[in-house]
């Protein structure tokens, strides 16, 4: 058997979407991967193995039977939910939106419980942001707030931020200052020049004080040794001095900030802080998006419906209200009577109560691999793996669209094709 080497393949595990992988393929299997981190490697090596069986109510079925069953469940539902999409291509997202509209159902994606608050904050106060290429070539100050890329986005440091050597940062790490703000020491914080270990849930207060310091407002109730978020004010002043002295700063914020107390308001305040810093120098903010294409979900949902997440079509037109139409809240209240889940594993990610609610209703899942959800879903449709056996577009965490190629053959269709088939059947059912 000959080994084919594919260069510049995109890793589809995390939002960093490294696009320089080298994949060695033999007999339609990836046998080796180069330029990749540990988590990316295991996704590349095993992402297209372990396909679930095509099943309808526990019985093996053909694809046609599965499409029919899915369309029947969905077109009968009074309050269906179409949800997921974090690991599938933008093109499939678009059909998902169309399907939700035809069904007059709910539509949500995984950012609803990870980086959604950051998206909501961006709607309110905007986002001064840059691309990862700019961060690599220009940033002389990188701040990681509530993010631990050493464990979640392992090649972020070497490709884009801390150690990357760029046009104006030829020495890499030596040309940069690195700051970490987190609730506990992490592998990332060990590399930092300055580490702030803060009390959980104090981010809003910290960002407010930092803003006041940047704007040189009086803080009469605080002395230099007063603790703000568990850290003395004098140390925060050092951070502000770093901000003001840098030529190009980037604040990467992670799920530690978006999902702690205050949520979107934490990000609003952080973005405003970054805005205030821009009175002195150039500073940007960027969310450290987790799942590979969760940013693409927001992008597609916005250009299709006007809203990034938590959408309801039950009146025939899109309405948006996080808290009312977001997946966890809808499931917890029992507002859903059928669910179509695409490219995510709710049984692994959602709280127990929401999973129990899902188990009580007819559930259709499209997944390239066996997951906790495929074990009990009513209809299971195996699909090709985006980036390995299906092509399409993903959005990197800095909103740059990246094209994925198909390098393996797969006996199962891509999400896009499955969704189109279900859509056509639903349209037929609604016509009659």
């Amino acid at each position, binding site marked *: 058997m000959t080994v084919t080497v594919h260069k510049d393949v995109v890793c589809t595990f995390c939002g960093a979407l490294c696009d320089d992988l080298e994949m060695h393929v033999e007999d339609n299997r990836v046998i080796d991967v180069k330029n990749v981190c540990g988590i990316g490697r295991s996704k590349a090596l095993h992402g297209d193995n372990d396909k679930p069986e095509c099943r309808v109510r526990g019985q093996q079925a053909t694809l046609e039977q599965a499409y029919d069953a899915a369309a029947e469940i969905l077109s009968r539902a*009074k309050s269906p939910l179409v949800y997921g999409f974090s690991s599938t291509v933008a093109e499939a997202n678009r059909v998902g939106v169309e399907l939700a509209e035809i*069904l007059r159902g709910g539509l949500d994606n995984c950012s609803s419980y990870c980086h959604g608050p950051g998206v909501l904050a961006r*709607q*309110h106060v905007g986002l001064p942001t840059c691309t990862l290429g700019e961060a690599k070539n220009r940033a002389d100050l990188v701040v990681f707030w509530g993010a631990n890329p050493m464990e979640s986005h392992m090649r972020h440091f070497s490709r884009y931020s801390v150690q990357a050597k760029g046009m104006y940062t030829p020495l890499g790490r030596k040309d940069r200052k690195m700051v970490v703000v987190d609730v506990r020491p992490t592998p990332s914080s060990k590399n930092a020049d300055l580490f702030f270990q803060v009390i959980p849930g104090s981010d809003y207060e910290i960002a407010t004080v930092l803003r006041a310091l940047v704007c040189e407002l009086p803080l*009469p*109730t605080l002395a230099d040794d007063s603790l703000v978020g568990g850290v003395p004010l004098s140390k925060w002043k050092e951070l502000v001095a770093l901000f003001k002295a840098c030529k190009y700063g980037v604040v990467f914020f992670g799920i530690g900030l978006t999902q702690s107390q*205050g949520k979107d308001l934490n990000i609003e305040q952080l973005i405003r802080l970054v805005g205030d810093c821009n009175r002195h120098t150039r500073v940007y903010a960027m969310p450290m998006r987790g799942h590979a294409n969760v940013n693409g979900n927001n992008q597609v949902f916005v250009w299709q419906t006007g809203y990034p997440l938590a959408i309801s079509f039950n009146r025939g037109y899109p309405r948006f209200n996080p808290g*009312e139409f977001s997946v966890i809240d809808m499931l917890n*209240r029992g507002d859903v009577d059928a669910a179509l889940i695409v490219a995510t594993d709710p049984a692994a990610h959602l709280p127990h109560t929401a999973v129990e609610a899902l188990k009580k209703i007819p559930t259709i899942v499209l997944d390239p691999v066996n997951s906790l959800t495929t074990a009990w879903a009513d209809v299971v449709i195996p699909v090709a793996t985006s980036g390995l056996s299906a092509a399409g577009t993903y959005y990197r965490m800095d909103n740059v669209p990246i094209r994925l190629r198909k390098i393996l053959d797969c006996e199962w269709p891509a999400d896009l094709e499955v969704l189109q088939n279900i859509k056509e059947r639903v349209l037929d059912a609604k016509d009659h």
Partner: protein
Amino acid sequence: MKRVIDLRLTRVPDLPLEADRLRPDSLAQAGLDELYALPLLYGNQTVAAGEFLRGEIQETEEGASGVTLILRGDFKRVKRLGQGMQSGELIIEGPCGFHTGAEMGGGRITIRGDAGDWLGAHMTGGVIRVEGNAGHWVGASYRGKTQGMRGGAVIIHGNAGRMTGTKMRGGLIVVRGDCLEFPGYDMNAGTILIAGRSGRHIGSGMVRGTIIVRDGHSLLPTFYHNCAYKPSFWPLLRSYIEAQGLVLDGWGADCFFDRYSGEALTGCKGEVLLCHTA
């Protein structure tokens, strides 16, 4: 002529029911048949109100004229009751769901149970009284909008959730119990009184307006102490709240307040009053 429409929920809906057509001012003429035919949104289906409601209409010549709509039962899953109403009275004998009284411009709503989130969001007039607890976002603005409640009053006998009065632009919110974090977030004008314990970050981002609280343990350092004084408006506000049927224990007419101005980051024109003697 006084018209009393007394309806009872015959079954609790198993999916959310949107009932923005149930408001007293649009039922001034309707007979029972017309009322039962009103379209409600049940999940994504339009159903007739009669599928969920039964009751009677009484008309008398005595007393003040107007329409009173009484709803009896567990309306927790029913959203948008009294939304946009301009006059009349709505009495809910039980709990109610999201958006009750949202965008209302006049009239009265009395809720003898707990209210859902977004109670009185964007309201411009009228009075809402809740005998139980209220949810999050009382009198707030919906996402993407810049102004929340602009007038009227929301009187809550129990507790309130997060983000009470977010982006509020006018009117009054009174919470006799406790409330969760971020009351008066990005507030533009208006008055919020929290008689119990308040969650953290009172009035953060407030531009103008007044927030009256009992304990200020969570005031951000961007609020500055000005003075201790007896504001002349306090006895008036207090008697207005009493007239609405809510007595605040320990908040006498001669209360002293510590005045803080803030938030500094947004111009420092808002005020937080800390009750001294309560």
